[in-house]
């Protein structure tokens, strides 16, 4: 179980976040870099949705010794993935149009929350899958 979780963390969590880290480093060189504006772009939501999708795939292919928790974890990943995708669409399009209601700090904290939940849900799913 620990080996599976380590494999997921290294090749899902860390390697999956490399584009995000590269983007952050590139933006950090600029003088007017703001964390909230960087997070409010919503790219972390895409990484979280991909992690959830991969975890759903693992659960679908896994054995059926723990059927009930596997079903609940699949549902959890689907919910987090759907909310992340929807929030990404909101940030990319509606947020630009309604710029008066668009607050980078609020959007950034929403993105961080959803990203952490996507990480947690996929970690639980990978732990439960066999």
């Amino acid at each position, binding site marked *: 179980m620990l080996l599976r979780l380590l494999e997921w963390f290294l090749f899902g969590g860390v390697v999956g976040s490399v584009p995000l880290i590269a983007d952050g480093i590139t933006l950090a060189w600029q003088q007017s870099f703001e964390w909230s504006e960087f997070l409010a772009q919503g790219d972390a939501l895409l990484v979280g949705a991909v992690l959830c999708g991969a975890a759903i795939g693992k659960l679908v292919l896994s054995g059926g010794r*723990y059927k009930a*928790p596997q079903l609940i*974890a699949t549902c959890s990943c689907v919910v*987090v993935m759907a909310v992340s995708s929807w929030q990404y669409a909101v940030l990319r399009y509606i947020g630009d149009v309604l710029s008066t209601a668009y607050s980078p700090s609020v959007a950034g904290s929403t993105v961080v929350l959803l990203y952490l939940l996507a990480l947690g849900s996929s970690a639980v799913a990978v732990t439960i899958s066999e």
Partner: protein
Amino acid sequence: MNPFAVGGAAFGGFLSVVALVIYIVQDRASNKLRKQEEERFQAEAPTVKYETSPGGYSVRVDQDSTLTHDEESIPVDMDPLDLKPKHSSN
């Protein structure tokens, strides 16, 4: 924060926690059952003991078993080569 996003995220997180708790409970119950099965199997298995015969051979001695020495193994006081009492005269 967007209330719908926060609500959806909270629901997803809650489901994850529920799944993890059920998994832990089921895993512990399964491990406990497996351990009980192993203990029961070991308790029912006959105790087998090996002794070295006077001739230097390793001889199996059954204890707490329905099998007798005549059926299963060579008695300790017998020579395993010719199955005669070792110290008996011909």
